[in-house]
């Protein structure tokens, strides 16, 4: 976080966030999931480097459909693989999807939003037309179409989700920039003869950073959810454990009383999404200067 400039906004926000115990709990949960994701990535990289098959991929039909117990805390799936190990690997995929899609969507949204808001006129007309066009297409269908063109797998998911979800943030940023561009500090910058690019990205952008951070915390779980849906539909992750795939294969056996895989995976999705959403709300309360006092 760019809080080196002083406590004015960020230090203040942290103080306010600290008072919200639920937000702190969610922050802890997010950090915990992040640690799991890093652990999963390390495990994956290690096995890839050593050219070995990781334990979470090893099947043993004699151990298929074991309920949770000492040996396997979350039971085993239909091929005798440990559900917990795969769940943790699933966190890795979920985080990668959340972060990379945000890295695609947020720069696009912020850049276009700034341009539209600051310049107005024809630039604004064009960008508004562009994002309205994107917004008018049904999201999932659009994602599916992109994934089909790029091919199945993670790249398809990244591009599919990334290229369709910049609209919301673009709209928000545009509105904020319009609000800011007539404020005195911008006029002062202009009077000093600074270039437009410098005004937008050096002066206005830091002042609307909180909007972007909040959007990120809200977009992240949405992207994870979309990945789960896409993998569930069979066009998502291939070959690696993903929550969507796990839910899809667990669903067939659910009515036979094999509840563990489904339960733990949905619980993980639920917790991750909830933690990010609550944290996002708390951050908005903490960061929005107008909600001071």
């Amino acid at each position, binding site marked *: 976080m760019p809080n080196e400039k002083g406590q004015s906004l960020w230090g203040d926000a942290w103080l306010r966030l600290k008072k919200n115990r639920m937000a702190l709990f969610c922050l802890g949960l997010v950090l915990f999931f992040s640690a799991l994701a890093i652990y999963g990535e390390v495990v994956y990289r290690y096995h890839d480097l050593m*050219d070995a*098959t990781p334990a979470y*991929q*090893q*099947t043993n*039909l004699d151990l*298929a459909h074991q309920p949770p117990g000492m040996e396997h805390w979350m039971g085993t799936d*239909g*091929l005798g693989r440990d559900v917990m190990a795969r769940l943790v690997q699933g966190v890795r995929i979920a985080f990668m999807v959340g972060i990379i899609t945000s890295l695609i969507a947020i720069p696009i949204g912020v850049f276009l939003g700034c341009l539209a808001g600051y310049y107005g006129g024809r630039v604004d007309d064009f960008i508004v037309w562009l994002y309205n066009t994107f917004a008018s297409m049904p999201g999932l269908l659009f994602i599916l179409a992109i994934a089909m063109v790029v091919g*199945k797998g993670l790249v398809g998911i990244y591009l599919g989700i990334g290229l369709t979800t910049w609209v919301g943030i673009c709209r928000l940023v545009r509105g904020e920039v319009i609000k800011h561009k007539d404020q005195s500090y911008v006029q002062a910058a202009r009077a000093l003869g600074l270039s437009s690019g410098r005004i937008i990205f050096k002066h206005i952008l830091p002042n609307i950073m909180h909007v972007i951070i909040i959007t990120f915390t809200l977009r992240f779980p949405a992207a994870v959810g979309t990945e789960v849906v896409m993998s569930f539909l*069979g*066009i998502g992750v*291939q*070959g690696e454990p993903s929550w969507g*795939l796990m839910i*899809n*294969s667990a*669903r*067939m*056996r659910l*009515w*036979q009383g094999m509840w563990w895989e489904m339960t733990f995976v949905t619980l993980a999705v639920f917790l991750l999404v909830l933690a990010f959403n609550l944290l996002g709300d708390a951050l908005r309360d903490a960061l929005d200067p107008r909600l001071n006092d």
Partner: protein
Amino acid sequence: MIHRIPMGWPVVLLAGLFLLGCSEESQRSEFDADEIVSYSRSYRIKALDPALSGDVSSSKAISRIYEGLVEYDYLARPYKVVPLLTESMPEVSADGLVYTFKIRKGIHFHDDSCFSGGTGRELVAEDFIYSFKRIADVKNISSGFWIFDGRVLGINAFHEASKSTEPTDYGMEIEGLKALDRHTLQIRLTEPYPQLLNVLTMHYAFAVAHEAVEHYGPHFVSNPVGTGPYELVHWRRNSRIEFVRSPKWAETGRSETYPSNGTPEQIEAGLLKDAGEQIPFVDRVVQFVVDDGSTAWMMFLSGQFSFSEISPDNWDAVMTVDEGLNEGLEKRGISIVSAPTLELRYIGFNWEDAVLGTSTDPEVDRRHRKLRQALSCAYNFDQMNQFMNGRLYPANGPVPEPLGGSLKERAPYRFDLEKAMRLLAEAGYPEGIDPKTGRRLKLTMEVGGADPTTRQMMELLTAMFDRINVVLNVQYNTSPAFHEKLNRKRAQMFYLGWVADYPDAENFFQLFYSKNVTPGPNHANYRNTEIDRIYEQIQTMLDSPERTALYEKMAHIVVEDAPWIFCYQSQSFALKHSWIKNYTYHAFPYGMEKYQRANIDERTQWFKTHKDKKLSMSGEE
């Protein structure tokens, strides 16, 4: 023929025709009648025209209404062709080129308004010539022309002539199709065609009446007029279809009987109790399209369907460990009939692939063969079978049992890890390490589907190859994308199956013939001059011990070359209710409902006992 019938028709029909039991029973609407209710889960009947349809559901429906010259015997195994509309098996000339069929006298088409006076006329030899011309007519876009293509004298000339923009001239003579008299049909061939009688059992070769085709025009697909045991009464597309016993058979005194020969096992299974009885036994056949598997399953449990398949998801709940049905189902008198089908599942290696395929350098070629053999040895059938709940049947070669040419002994490249490692080392990948990269060998497999079962099977397969240190990267494609890759020869390995068109190993060996490479059915693009030579030789050979020996020789060559991993032969598991009699598995079930019987008393009794019981999905009360 189709009558325009209001929706309430089934109930009216019941009240009118089946006044059995008390009123309480008749409220159960259509399910109390003397009928077989079968269903097809997602497969819809497309058209009821023998020349047009190519799908299984349509074939089954067509075979209830129409008939051909010959059919498969219901009970004989291996499958045997027997006369149906002919008096006896055809006379075949010594050179195998001329077949003469004596068509039975007194066979009549069903009554229909397309005939003068509305009464069905007698079937004659000309009807077959007309029907065969219809599948050769390009304008009909028939999927069945292959059965005669290049085989019957002059039929290709007719095929070409029909390409003109003028309406096809059905008066045009075909040299190889002659009606010697009213009831004698002669077929003359360009070369011996051992599968002729097999293809004549298929619905493409069934007799249609030219009056009906001309009368109904484009609506002929939904107005079938045949000679068979049933007539169509009602067809709501993609929903419900209903057939009733044709009164024509009784009117014209046509006698058809249940077969009276069977094996001791069949006698024990009660399959010959009706030997020599007049068929068909069942008055009505009703079939539903139910897309949702759970709904279909519950309808079966409640007695609305007489038959059901078992979906893999249901398997554990329905079956006990030793392949029996669970208690709840057994109490309801449900029984299971299982038999290996003529479907072979395999993993193909692309013969043109740089790692797995053939090569002009004999040394490289030899090493690639070792690699394919090593991969075959890594495939663990028992594990796959365990995953599929013991529903599979092992395959030892390219021909499924019980066809001639199937190999009885355990194939040399069935599961054996030590052998796999040894072959892998001989192929130049010691311990599975690719010397070029210093890492494990990586292979790519293409699959045409991504449903959970396929996915888990592929994950299991990946684990099998992992044991010999080969990394399998599975690509899940949509079905069109998968076939696109196959057709461009882009697939390194692929997972496919083949279902026999007729019970002859030749149908499987065509998949290894070099002239059938992609886009033909030889998707592995396998080429072997020895196989080509023998395949061309057996093309014209009639069934004989020599031919079976050649089949076995080919099978051995294919096993040694290992262009496929022979995964398994599928088994069919049919569940049926106790009131259905005479049911046995048949690989070509077209028209076989006429041999089945439904016992009404048993059925009524069953409903009295079981109708109010609440059930779980597994059939337990």
